[in-house]
């Protein structure tokens, strides 16, 4: 695991998106998206419903393909080549709104599955690391339960642990707290904050403005498939430049 230490930001760009365009049928959902993310950066994506936030974040690990433009992750160019996509998926972890744990496996199996089958780790070692991860997300005692026996907040923390078990360079979060009851949101956000402090590169789609202000290094605002505005939390919240940003913030705050 990375050590918890003050953030230093090497100038290496781990994600580069250049003129990314995507259509669903005739619907143009991503329009000339240009965005680069440095290693260790925490980027929060805001925007109204249907603006293409999920679609964008899902193009990063090839869950959605793009019709125009380039996405380069850690010097690997995303293409239709399944080899490249699989290589990139080993570099990126993803956390979904609906957790998507595997209901037929225990928590421990959920976490050790990919290290054992994809990284070919010995079972003992994978389990030891899984228990450490569960410790890190604060639920070491749940290892032998099934997902259905856990609360939403606990399930989402397991989902984070499952993604971390592959030791990814980048973590993608698509509204990780939107399906949670209010009292469970904090426990998940706390885990994410700890992760951000540890130097993980993170892309987070969220409606949690408090989290965005406190943790984000940079915020981008999506509207209608375009990046409308990019800036530090202070700049974006306190001194928005664009009318659409002002409108969005006025509706949400």
């Amino acid at each position, binding site marked *: 695991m990375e050590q918890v230490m003050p953030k230093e930001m090497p100038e290496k760009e781990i994600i580069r998106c250049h003129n990314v365009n995507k259509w669903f049928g005739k619907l143009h959902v991503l329009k000339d998206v240009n965005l680069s993310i440095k290693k260790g950066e925490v980027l929060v994506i805001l925007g109204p419903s249907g603006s293409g936030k999920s679609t964008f974040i899902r193009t990063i*690990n090839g*869950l959605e393909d793009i019709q125009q433009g380039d996405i380069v992750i850690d010097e690997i160019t995303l293409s239709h080549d399944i080899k490249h996509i*699989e290589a990139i*998926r*080993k570099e*990126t*972890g*993803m956390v*979904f709104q*609906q957790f*998507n*744990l*595997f*209901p*037929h496996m225990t928590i421990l199996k959920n976490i050790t*599955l*990919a290290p054992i*089958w*994809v990284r070919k780790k010995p079972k003992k070692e994978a389990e030891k690391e899984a228990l450490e991860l569960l410790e890190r997300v604060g639920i070491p005692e749940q290892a032998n339960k099934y*997902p*259905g026996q856990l609360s939403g907040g606990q399930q989402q923390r397991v989902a984070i642990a*499952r*993604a971390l*078990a*592959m030791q990814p360079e980048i973590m993608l979060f698509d509204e990780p707290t939107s399906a949670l009851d209010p009292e469970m949101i904090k426990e998940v956000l706390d885990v994410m904050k700890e992760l951000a402090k540890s130097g993980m590169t993170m892309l987070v789609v969220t409606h949690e403005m408090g989290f965005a202000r406190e943790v984000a290094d940079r915020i981008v605002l999506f509207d209608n498939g375009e990046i409308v505005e990019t800036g530090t939390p202070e700049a974006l919240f306190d001194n928005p430049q664009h009318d659409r940003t002002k409108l969005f913030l006025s509706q949400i705050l």
Partner: protein
Amino acid sequence: MMHTEITPTKSKVLPPEQKQTIFGWTKKNLFNSWFNIILTFVSLFIIFIVLKGTLTWVVTNADWEVIRANYRLFMVGQFSEEEIWRVWSALLYLTLLFGLSAGIWKGTIRQLSFLLTAIYVIHLALPFLSGHTKIWLLSNIVTLFASYVIGLKLPKGKMIGIGGWLFSIIVILFFLQGFGILPSVQTSMWNGLLLTVILSAVAIVGSFPIGILLALGRTSKLPIIKYFCIAYIEFIRGIPLITVFFSMQILIPLFLPEGFTVANIIRVMIGATLFTAAYMAENVRGGLQSIPKGQFEAAKTIGLSSIQSTFLIILPQALRAVIPAIVGQSISMFKDTSLVAIVGLVDLLGIAQTVKSNPAFLGHHMEVYLFVALVYWVIAYAMSYSSRRLEETLGVGKR
């Protein structure tokens, strides 16, 4: 521990006690309204009439000599007396597997082993079976208990158990057929319940993997595979089983080199397997469709290949969801084997036909059919019972 109890009563609130008396239960469930009172009486009356009629007939009018005299025929048909030890050995192997598995896995398989023991014990008590038979029955019972105890303690039990079941069909066919090592028993001598059970076992076990492959193929992105699977499934589901049996008689010889023949029983096995596979495929497909898209995506994002995600994530959940449908299909295959009479095989029902037309037992077809129905029912019920138990233990429907 030192804590002051502020609300001592609150911590001990139990649910109100529910004393159920038989009287209370009947009142609540059977006589709670005028309409239900009438229904209860009408049903009781019908049950009474039917039971009285049947039981009177079973006990006083029926002559069970026809079953007694032909018992062996019903069970193993014309399998010769000298070779009968082979059927017993095959059964002994199965008993051993049941015992071991009961010890290893407990649960459903243990219940089935109880049922098996019960069947053996009942047969032991039947006065007309020979001493020779009873020795075999006794050794089955002893084996069952011994292997159960061994199964409880066996290290690596699950591996051994699964291996044993995987080999079971081969072991059983070896004992029955001989494979050139034991003197061969012509397959036309395999009749009665023995044939029914072997046919259905082969068809059910064989159709399962084929059905899974067809279902996966149907969802494939490769058009050739996809349309082949669709065509196969839809074609087979559109024709009756009898037609399949008939066409196997004609088609299989066409594919074989000159002078090479395949026993009738093999052709029927292939037909039944291919037929059932189409239905299995549709059941499995239902299960595949019930898996949320998020499961596929989660599997992808942690880096599993599509083969890994199919076999580790999707199929285990899909199959669990359709256990009832798969067992239902197996039960109906088991009963449908009775159609093989059409192509000249003599299964349990076939034996029933021969026995009832034997001049010595003329007019006793009721007894014969009732007995055959009972045998079918016991096996079919055991299947559906274990499916229900399996659903409970695997928690189908709970996420």
